């Protein structure tokens, strides 16, 4: 390719950056989302294992949340670092982030379960008496946490996370789209100023949210790095979703020459660095300390993940969330070549989902001490199933993905697909990796 042909002039005309044509796709996605969720609810309603249904919803809802939180992180980190390169791809990230304005509604089923007094089917510590009768030693560990793990504080915290996330999403979205019409540079400065406390609020909220909703599923267990692990998962999901939204918009004929291979390479680098390498670094750090110390109140969490089918899920994560994408996306050209990045992003999105599946579903069996040795324990739980065949998984996944893409496109349809009057847009359009 010659030098002259490599330069594809950015097209900032309405035809290229106004997404009114997205309406039909958005409506279709929302329809698919709501129908799938409705079918899932109808099936789940008659299920004999409501705890499992609730956990399937928890996992898929967390997947949607991870995508939106990844988008939020992308947006404020660009403001925080005064980044110029990313302006051309910031609007799609803002649209993903805006899902935080409705995702809180996904928590309502858990409120309802609590009002029915049944929330212990998801988070066992809601019923201390049951833990005490099943395993007094475990109960002692959980009771010591009652100052944190109690229903009132749990719901106050959840409300705080939703308020923080929605407020940040609202603030960054509002200022960004208002700048499209008034071109005010002061808005950029204001967003940069807010980005600093936003980082702090974001870090604290997702740390405690992951402790409450995921670590709390095994209340006796603890890991101090857990919030960071969830954050890495959010990056894998959010950045991959961002890459896919950009790629799909361009495939649909939008943003011609606005988003270039240079931007794709940088999004690819972020997926690689945060979603693949950083995730593996944190996952291994957590694993190694627990493996080395090998004390029962910590290692049972990993034990549950190497029984029966779960050992294949663990192995799949090691290979699919790290080894394979590491080798695939390490190269410059796979990140710049659209087909390469599409494959990498879909792959990482799938494994971000599997990562949450692996975090949410396995349960630590009671009475581990009654087995003679590990071999006997593994044999006793050899038929532990990961329930991949359960259609609820796929219906709820389709439901969440339908709603996320639908609401994301609804947002993009109402406003220009690029921050057209951001003072650094020109820098972004002419951005080149050295």
């Amino acid at each position: 390719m010659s030098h002259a042909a490599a330069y594809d002039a950015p097209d900032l005309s309405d035809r290229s950056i106004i997404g009114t044509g997205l309406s039909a796709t958005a409506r279709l996605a929302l329809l698919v989302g709501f129908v799938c969720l409705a079918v899932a609810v109808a099936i789940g309603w008659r299920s004999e294992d409501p705890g499992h249904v609730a956990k399937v919803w928890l996992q898929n809802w967390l997947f949607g949340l991870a995508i939106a939180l990844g988008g939020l992180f992308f947006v404020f980190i660009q403001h925080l670092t005064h980044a110029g390169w990313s302006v051309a791809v910031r609007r799609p990230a803002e649209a993903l982030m805006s899902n935080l304005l409705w995702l809180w509604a996904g928590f309502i089923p858990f409120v309802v379960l609590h009002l029915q007094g049944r929330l212990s089917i998801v988070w066992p510590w809601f019923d201390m008496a049951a833990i005490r009768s099943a395993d007094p030693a475990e109960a002692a560990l959980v009771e010591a946490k009652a100052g944190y793990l109690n229903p009132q504080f749990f719901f106050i915290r959840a409300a705080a996370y939703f308020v923080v996330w929605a407020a940040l999403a609202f603030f960054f979205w509002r200022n960004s789209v208002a700048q499209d019409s008034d071109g005010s540079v002061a808005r950029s400065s204001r967003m940069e100023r807010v980005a600093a406390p936003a980082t702090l609020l974001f870090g604290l909220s997702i740390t405690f949210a992951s402790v409450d909703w995921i670590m709390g599923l095994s209340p006796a267990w603890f890991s101090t790095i857990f919030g960071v692990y969830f954050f890495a998962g959010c990056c894998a999901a959010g950045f991959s979703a961002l890459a896919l939204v950009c790629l799909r918009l361009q495939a649909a004929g939008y943003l011609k020459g606005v988003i270039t291979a240079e931007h794709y390479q940088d999004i690819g680098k972020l997926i690689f660095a945060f979603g693949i390498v950083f995730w593996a670094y944190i996952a291994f750090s957590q694993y190694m300390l627990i493996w080395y110390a090998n004390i029962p109140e910590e290692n049972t969490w990993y034990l549950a993940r190497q029984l029966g089918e779960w050992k294949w899920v663990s192995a799949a994560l090691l290979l699919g969330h790290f080894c394979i994408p590491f080798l695939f996306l390490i190269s410059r050209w796979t990140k710049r070549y659209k087909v390469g990045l599409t494959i990498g992003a879909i792959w990482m999105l799938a494994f971000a989902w599997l990562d949450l599946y692996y975090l949410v579903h396995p349960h630590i069996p009671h009475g581990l001490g009654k087995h003679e040795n590990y071999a006997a324990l593994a044999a006793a739980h050899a038929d532990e199933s990961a329930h991949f065949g359960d259609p609820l998984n796929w219906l709820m996944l389709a439901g969440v993905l339908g709603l996320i893409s639908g609401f994301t496109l609804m947002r993009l349809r109402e406003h220009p697909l690029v921050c057209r009057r951001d003072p650094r847009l020109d820098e972004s359009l002419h951005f080149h990796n050295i």
Partner: protein
Amino acid sequence: MTTLATPPPQVPLRTAETKRRLWGLIAEFDNPALILQAAERVRHAGYTLWDCHTPFPVHGLDAAMGIRRTILPVLVFMGGLTGATLALVLQVFTNGTALSFWALVWVTGYPFLVSGKPFWSIPAFIPVIFELTVLLSALTAAFGMFFLNGLPRLSHPLFGNRHFLRASDDRFFVSIDARDPNFLRSRTEGLLRSLGARRVEAVEE
């Protein structure tokens, strides 16, 4: 150094006054736009032993010069792979073998029981594998870059040119090596002058 007011028709490789070998020609330009254009033309004229010298990175210059991508990333990957393998072998040998083998002296591993873990415990090996991978990747990147750039070298004929000092300040230079198969002093000088250079000079070794 001699200015080229009257180039001889036949190009001698040694200039008359000093009897020193001609290294090549340099052309000085005022701005990035001129050097981008100059680079395109020099490339199209078929030169291969030439370079551009600018005070800051000029976007598009690599493409204009037709520079292929560096093989450095491949070298770094190999370096990382070597580091990983080395770390694994080192630990497997030292932690896990009681075998002795002859390497001028008797060498033996040192199996040592830690926390009741097996001698060969991959999780315990990973931090060292990680560190050595990073170390050898980084060293390969730094020293590979030096090597591919022909460094270290103590000096370069270009530094003998007084005007060339401004390559690190506000001027843009194209240099063409006299060993280039297409190099013909009169023709090359004519080409450089036609590109809008403010000055074209010969550089001696």
